[in-house]
C-alpha cells in the first residue's frame, strides 16, 4: 500500500518527452547541418570535376588496366584525416552530451521520500493489463494522477510485446519472464490544458501476432484529488475485474513488484 500523501512536484523535474525533444532537436539540427555541408560540398565537386570533354590537365595521371592498385597520397590524405577528426569530434561530443541525459532518464527524477506509484503492466495478445499497488487491475486504460512519478514494471504473459506511448516518449519491452522498467510523469498544467483529463495513446511496438495492429490502449491522467477519489473506490475489489487467466491477485503483484524493483 502506498502512502496516500502525495508530495508536490519539484520544479526541476523533466519528463522523458522533454529530454527526448531536447536531444532530438540537437541531433536533428547538427545532423542537418553536417549532412547539408557534406552533400553540398560533394555535389559541387562532382559538378566541378565533371568530364567536359576538354584535354586532361597535365597532372592527371590516368590509371591503366592491369596496374597494381595504389592509393592517392599527398594533400588529400591530410584533408582526409582532418575531416575524419572533425567528424569524430562532432559524433563523440554528441554522444557524451546525450549520455549525461541518459543517466537522468535511467535514474528518473529524485523524489526523495515521495511515494512513487508503481504499476505493473502486463502485455497479452492483444492488450494491456495494468495492476495497481492495491492489487486492483484495469485493462486497456491506465488511470494515473498528475504531478506524480509513475514507475512502470513491464512484462508479458505470452509473447514479446513492447509497451510505448509516442506522445509521452516512453517505451519498454514486455518480455515473458522479465520485468523492464520505465517511468513518466504528467504535470497538472498539461492535464488542465487537455480539459481536466489528459489522454495519451498507447501502442505495441513489437510484432506480437495477428492482432498487433489493434493492440492499442490509453493512459488517462487525472488531477490528483480526482484520482485519489477514484483509487479509493477500487479498494477491496482487486481481482473481480480480472478473468482467470489474469495475474491480478495481490500476491503475484507483490511478487512482481519485488522482482521488478531496480537494484
Amino acid at each position, binding site marked *: 500500500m502506498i502512502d496516500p500523501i502525495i508530495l508536490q512536484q519539484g520544479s526541476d523535474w523533466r519528463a522523458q518527452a522533454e529530454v*527526448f525533444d531536447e*536531444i532530438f532537436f540537437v*541531433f536533428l539540427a547538427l545532423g542537418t547541418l*553536417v549532412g547539408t555541408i*557534406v*552533400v553540398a560540398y*560533394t555535389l559541387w*565537386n*562532382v559538378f566541378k*570535376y565533371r*568530364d567536359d570533354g576538354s584535354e*586532361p590537365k597535365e597532372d*592527371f595521371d*590516368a*590509371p591503366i*588496366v*592491369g*596496374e*597494381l*592498385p*595504389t*592509393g*592517392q597520397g599527398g594533400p*588529400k*590524405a591530410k584533408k*582526409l*584525416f582532418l*575531416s*575524419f577528426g572533425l*567528424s*569524430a569530434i562532432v559524433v563523440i561530443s554528441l*554522444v557524451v552530451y546525450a549520455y549525461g541525459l*541518459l*543517466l537522468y*532518464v535511467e535514474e528518473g527524477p529524485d523524489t526523495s521520500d515521495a511515494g512513487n506509484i508503481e504499476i505493473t503492466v502486463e502485455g497479452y495478445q492483444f492488450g494491456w493489463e495494468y495492476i495497481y499497488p492495491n492489487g486492483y487491475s484495469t485493462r486497456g486504460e491506465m488511470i494515473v494522477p498528475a504531478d506524480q512519478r509513475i514507475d512502470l514494471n513491464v512484462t508479458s504473459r*505470452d*509473447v*514479446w510485446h*513492447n509497451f*510505448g506511448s*509516442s506522445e509521452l*516518449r516512453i*517505451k519498454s*519491452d514486455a*518480455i*515473458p*519472464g*522479465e520485468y*523492464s522498467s520505465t517511468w513518466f510523469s504528467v504535470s497538472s498544467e498539461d492535464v488542465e490544458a487537455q480539459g481536466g483529463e489528459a489522454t495519451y*495513446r498507447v*501502442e505495441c*511496438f*513489437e*510484432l*506480437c*501476432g*495477428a492482432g*498487433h*495492429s*489493434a493492440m492499442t490502449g490509453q493512459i488517462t491522467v487525472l488531477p490528483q484529488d480526482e484520482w485519489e477519489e477514484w483509487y479509493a473506490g477500487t479498494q477491496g475489489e482487486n481481482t473481480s475485474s480480472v478473468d482467470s487467466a489474469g495475474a491480478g491477485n495481490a500476491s503475484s503483484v507483490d511478487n512482481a513488484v519485488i522482482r521488478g524493483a531496480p537494484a
Partner: protein
Amino acid sequence: MSELPPTTSVKRWLVTTNHKDIGILYTITALFFLLFGGVLALLIRVQLWDPMNQILSGLAYNEAVTAHGLIMVFWFLSPFAFGFANYFVPLQIGADDLAFPRLNALSYWMYLFSGVLLSISFFQGGTLSAGWTIYAPLNIPAYTPSIGSTGAILALAMFTIGVTASSVNFLVSIHHSRAEGMGIMDMPMFTWTILATVWMMLFAFAALLAAGLILASDRVLGSVYFSATEGGSLLWGHLFWFFGHPEVYIVFFPALGAMLELFQTFSGRRLVGRKWVIIAICLVSVQSFLVWMHHMFLTTINLEIKTLMMATTIGISLPFDLIVFSLIYTLIKGRIQFTTPFLFAFGALLLFILGGITGVFLGAIVLDYEFRGTYWVVAHFHYVMFGGATALIGAAYYWFPKITGKMYDELLGKIHFVLFFIGFNAVYFSMFLGWETPRRVFEYNPELQIYHQFGTIGAFVLGFSFFIMFYNFAKSYVSGEPAGDNPWDYSRTAEWAISSPPPLQNWPNRPSYASGKLEFVKDYVPDRGPAVKTDANGNGATDGGDTHSEHIKEYPYWDKHPSHASIWPLTLSFAVGVLFLGLTGFRDNVVFEVGESLASTSVTISNPVYPILIVVGLVGLVWTGVKWSLEDFYAPPTEFAERWPFEGVEKVKLGMWFFIASDVIVFGAFLSAAIFVRYNAGWMTWEPLAEPLPGLINTFVLLTSSFTVILALVAARRKSRQGLLASLGATIVLGFTFLGIKLWEWNKEIFERGVTISANAHGDPIQASIYYVTTGLHGIHVVIGLVIAIFLFVRAYQGHYLEDERPIEYFGLYWHFVDIVWVFIFPLFYLF
C-alpha cells in the same frame, strides 16, 4: 567427370561448376527474389495507404512483412552481391576459378532450393508471420502453428548452410589463389570488401545457424528453449543479434566495394588513403561482433553494458566516416563521367550519408528508446542496406558489358536512375517524417496518413523503375552494341584485360603481377611433370613464392585438364531440400506416445507424405554424397600464388580449418545458450540430469578414438594398408560404442526417469531440452564422422590413401574437433 555442354544447352546450367556461370545463376535468381520481395513490399504499401485498410488480414499482413524482410535480406541482397563476387573475385585476383568449384555450385543450389522451400511455405497453411527478426516466443508453434512457419525457418537454416560453404570457399580462394605478385594489400577494393564480408559471414552465419537449429528443434522435435521463461526470449535476442549486426555489414560491404571501384573508374582517380580505407574495413569487421546489444537496449540490460555497447556502436561509426570522406575526396580533380553505373554508385553514397547520420541518432540511447520499434528504424536500415544495394545496381550496369559482351542502353539506364532515386527517397524519407508509426502496424494513427500515402506512391515509382532495367538488359542482351573488351576509359582491374565475355579458362596464360603490373606469363610445361615457373622474359625463375619441389606432391594429376561440370551439387542440394521439406510436417503428422519402455511406445502417422520425404531425402543425401566423393573431379590449385598468411597450408586443409572455425561458433552458441538459460534459472537449482559414470566412460571412448585416428594417419604414411584398416576400424568401433552408450543413457532417462525433450520429472523442462539438444547436436557430428570413416575404410580396403594420405589427415582434424567439443559438454551436463 562429364564435359561442360555449351551455354545454349539447359544441361550446362544444371551441371556447371564454373565460377562465371554460377555468378550468372546467382544474379538472375537474386533478381527473381527482388521481384518476389518487391511485390510483397507493394502489398504492404497498399495496406498502409489508409489506416483503416484491410486488404490483407492481420495474419496475412504479418506474413507479407516477414517474408518481405527475409527475402530481401537473405534471398536478394547477399546473393545479388555474391553473383558479382563469384564472377569477378577470381578475375580480380588472377585465379582460374574458386578453390572448390563443386562446393561453389553446391552453395548456389542450396540457395535456390532454400528459396523454393520458402516459396512452398506459403502453401503450407501460411508462411512465418513473426517478423524477419523472428522474436521468441512468437516463433514457436504455440503462437505460429502453421507448417509453413517451420518451412520458412528450415529454409533459412538451409540457406545458412549454403552461405557457410560459400564463405569457406571464398576465404580459401582469396587467401590461396592470388596471382603471383598480388599481395593482400594489392587486391582490388571489391575483392577486399568481399574478403571482409566472408570473414564476417563465417562467424555470423554460424550463430544464425545455431539459432535456426535450436528453433527448428523447438518446432520439429518439441524442445522448449524459446518458450522457457528462464531467459528464452532474451536468448533468441542475443543469438539473433550476434548474427544480426554483422549481417548489416555483410549486406553493405559488397555494395561499398562496388562504390569504391566505380568511383575510381568513373573519375579516373585512385582511392584516397587506400591503406586506411582497408584498415577501416578490417576494424569494422571485428567491431561488428561487439555491438549487438544495441538492438536490445530496452530489454532489461543493465546500464554498464548499455554504456559499453553505446561506446562500441559510436566506435564502429567512425571508420565509416573515414571511408565516406575517402570516397568524396577521390572524386576531386578527377574527370567524372556521369554514366549510369556512376550515377547509381554516387546515389548510393548520398543515401548512405543520410542512413549513416540517422544511425548516429540511434546510437544515443535516449533517442533509441523512443525510436525502438518505429518507422525511424525501418527508414534508417532501408537507407543503409537498400541504399548500399543501389551501388550494386550500378555494379550490374558496370559489369553488364563484360558479362554479355553487349553495351546497355545509356538513356534508359539514366531514366532508371532518376525514377529509382526519386522513388527511393519518396518511400523511405517519408518514413522518417512519419516515424512515430510502430513497425508492422497497419491501423496506425490517422494523423500520419499523409506520409504513408506519399510513401506508397514512391514505392510504386521505385518498383516501376526496375522494369526499365529489366527491359534495358533484355533488349541490350539481344540486340545491344558490341561492348568490346574494355568499354571504360579508366578501368584498372584485371577483368577488363580479357575478352567480353571471358573465356572458360579466363586467362590466355598465367597471370602474374611479379613485375608490378599484369602480365600473362607462358610457363614451360614439360611432357610429364608440373609446370616450371618462368618470368616475363621466359627465363626460369627461382625467387619468391613456394619453391617448385614443394608443389609436386600437391599436384599429382598435373597432366589432367580442370573439370567444370558435375551433377552432384544439384542432386545433393535437392536431397537436402526434400529432407527439410519432410521435416516441416514431421511434428504435425508423426506423434509419439511414450509408454513404459521403448517397446510400448507407439507412433501415429497421420499423413505419410512427410515421413516418406524425410526418408527419401536422407537416402538421397547419403547416396549423392558417396557419388560426389567418388567422382573424378579435378580442380587444380593456382600453382604459383600469393598465399599470405597461409603459405604452408594446402587448400583442402585450409578449407577444413575454416569450416571448423565456423563450427566452433555453432557449438559455442549451443553451449552459451545452455549457460545463459541455466544462469537465468538460477545456476545452483539444477542438478545434472545424466549420471556421471557412463559419461566418463564415453569421454575415454572418444579420446581413445582420437588416438586411433592418429594411428591411422601414421599407418597411411608408412604405407601399411593393414595398419590403416585396423586403426580406422578401431575408430569406427569406438564411435559406435560411444553412440551405443549414448542411446542406452537416453533410453534410461526417457523410460525410467521420465526425462524427455519436452518434459522433465525432476525439474525445469528446459533443462531436459538443453541436455538432449546439445548432446544430440554432438551426436549428429559423431554420426556424420562415422559415415565418413566408413567411407574411408571401404576406400582403404580397396587400396587407397597409401600414396596420398591427406583425406585421413583431414578427417582426423574433424574427428579431433568433435572429441574436443565433448570435453566441454561432459562437465557441463554430467558433473556440475
